[in-house]
């Protein structure tokens, strides 16, 4: 079992004909993912790697039954692409593109919410259910099918944690990189809720970072009663206040968003907090075995 995507998911790649889109679609197909369509306005009717390309997502959905969209288009067009996928009726939109203006995301998120479309990202590695379906840019070989759910705000940090958990002899049910931008789709709380109802997930790992209050909200939810063990890590304990560390969300303003506060909230909620990232996999394995 898993959440969001599985072996039956049918993926449409928006921006399939670009260099990045093509490379990663190829990797996804090599992993066994059903990439059923691509969308590039003006290139409808063509084919890339045996995948039919359409002018609009609506065409792609109608012709191929695609139910998940992966957005690879440049930042200036990404919010529009996410809305197009939502309007065409896909259930889940995964947005990899980074540097999307916040004003665009405010509008796009409202558009998607009004239509009940789920979004992962933007500025994220995507979603993978190991052994079944990879919708994103993560290196496939570090994953193993298993029972640990992983949610992370940071791309390469997700890989690090996944790798450690696989090395420790465990595997993952579904891994989601939720992205580090100020406005994102699915958040820690919503994904904890999805993992709560997934019989294939026995434990959940939350990989956070400084900025915002996503970790505090997740901690409050776990404190109110969560049926599975939760593990937590927060990057940026040593980040100097006010310095911007790559993600728009990773800004410490005043007393809010600090790593210390997040770790304390997690610990108080009964989340097993790992302070040294190198020990994450071993900590999870020790608790679950």
């Amino acid at each position, binding site marked *: 079992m898993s959440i969001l995507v599985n072996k039956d998911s049918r993926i449409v790649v928006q921006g399939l004909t670009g260099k990045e889109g093509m490379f990663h679609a190829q990797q996804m197909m090599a992993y066994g993912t059903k990439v059923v369509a691509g969308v590039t306005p003006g290139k409808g009717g063509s084919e890339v790697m045996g995948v039919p390309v359409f002018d609009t997502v609506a065409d792609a959905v109608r012709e191929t039954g695609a139910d998940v969209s992966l957005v690879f288009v440049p930042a200036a067009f990404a919010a529009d692409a996410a809305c197009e996928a939502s309007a065409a009726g896909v259930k889940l939109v995964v947005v990899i593109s980074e540097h999307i203006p916040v004003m665009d995301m*405010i*509008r796009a*998120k409202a558009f998607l919410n009004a239509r009940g479309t789920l979004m992962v990202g933007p500025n994220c590695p995507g979603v993978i259910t190991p052994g079944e379906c990879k919708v994103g840019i993560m290196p496939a070989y*570090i994953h193993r099918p298993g029972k640990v759910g992983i949610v992370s705000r940071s791309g390469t940090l997700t890989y690090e944690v996944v790798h450690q958990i696989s090395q420790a002899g465990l595997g993952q049910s579904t891994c989601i990189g939720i992205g580090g931008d100020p406005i994102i789709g699915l958040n820690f709380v919503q994904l904890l809720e999805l993992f709560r109802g997934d019989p294939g997930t026995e434990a959940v790992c939350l990989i956070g970072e400084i900025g915002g209050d996503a970790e505090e909200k997740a901690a409050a939810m776990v404190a109110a009663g969560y049926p599975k063990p939760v593990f937590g890590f927060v990057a940026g304990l040593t980040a100097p206040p006010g310095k911007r560390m790559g993600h728009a969300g990773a800004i410490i303003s005043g007393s809010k968003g600090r790593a210390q506060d997040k770790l304390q909230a997690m610990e108080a909620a009964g989340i097993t907090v790992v302070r040294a*990232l190198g020990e994450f996999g071993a900590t999870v394995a020790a608790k679950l075995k």
Partner: protein
Amino acid sequence: MNVHEYQAKEMLARFGVPVPKGGLATTPQEAVGVARELGGPVFVVKAQVHAGGRGKAGGVKVCKSIDEVQAAAQAILGIRLVSHQTGPEGKLVHKVWVEAGTDIARELYAAVVLDRGAERLAVMVSPDGGMDIEEVAAKTPERIFSTRIDPGQPLWDFQCRQLLFACGLDAAQVRQGTGLLQALVNLATTKDASQVEINPLAVTGEGKLVALDAKINFDDSGLRRNPDVAALKDPTETDALELAATSLGLNYIRLDGNVGTMVNGAGLAMATMDVIKMAGAQPANFLDVGGGASEEMITKGFEIILDDPKVEAILINIFGGILRCDVLAAGVVGAAKKMDLKVPLVVRLEGTNVAEGKRILDQSGLNFSVAGSMSEAAAKVAKVLEGAA
């Protein structure tokens, strides 16, 4: 991206927000020229640096004559202004803004800011302007009034009326304030500003609203479609090495320690800094080479790390996804050879093409140690530093 007060005020004026008349000066003579044009009788000379708390730090002076303007400009220009936001090293003042003094009856606060939780813009006002708004929020939260703007909707007049009547303004001032708040929202949405703050927003003796100070923070992701905003960037406000890194598409922030770091991904870079600190050493920088770094970018990034004279050891931590380990390795070898690397280097590689990356490093003849995990990498760095001390 932050801008100076004078740039923020020029932008506000373009959107119809009243600001005091003024002009920019880089010398006391220029300040005198601006003051003569303004006429007086009262002037304010304000240091233009990217930091709050300028008043308390001595960077703002009220003057009652042209001579006083000259003396104030003389005193402020060229000093290092140290406020609670600049750090102990302070900020060098290159420019002052000279403006006409305002007859202030009351001071309010007004801001448009992104509310991440609500996923929309928030408009916030307070009758207690002229002081630190965080202090107001902490001590008298009931003195702050706010509203949210539904995505795709305007800031409606009624929302402004609610906020402004709550601040105790009269009907005429509420009418003026409604246009002013709507102008702030218009600026934020059309220019991709993530924060527009006016503090204080003065009510003059005549009952008019005027923005006496302004801070605008722009969304970096919106700069491409707002070239007029991008042009406001002041390179003297940014560390020279940070500037060099930005021009290469690298995300570099200089810190105080002695361990240079190169990592891919912001989260992993922060986590790497954390493990270095836990191992007893101090990171010298944050350097995220990103997902799509080329061999040349890696080489340049390496050079930037070594340009910092405080660096005594380097830790490279790469988890290859889009960035392949072989590309990273070739870049490091190229830079190390070119620069005659003298400090110890610890490398931890994992991910796409890791075997090829390790082979390139092994055959390079470089003196470095390989770590199998993050903890091991940090421990090795701490150890070589101890050995050197």
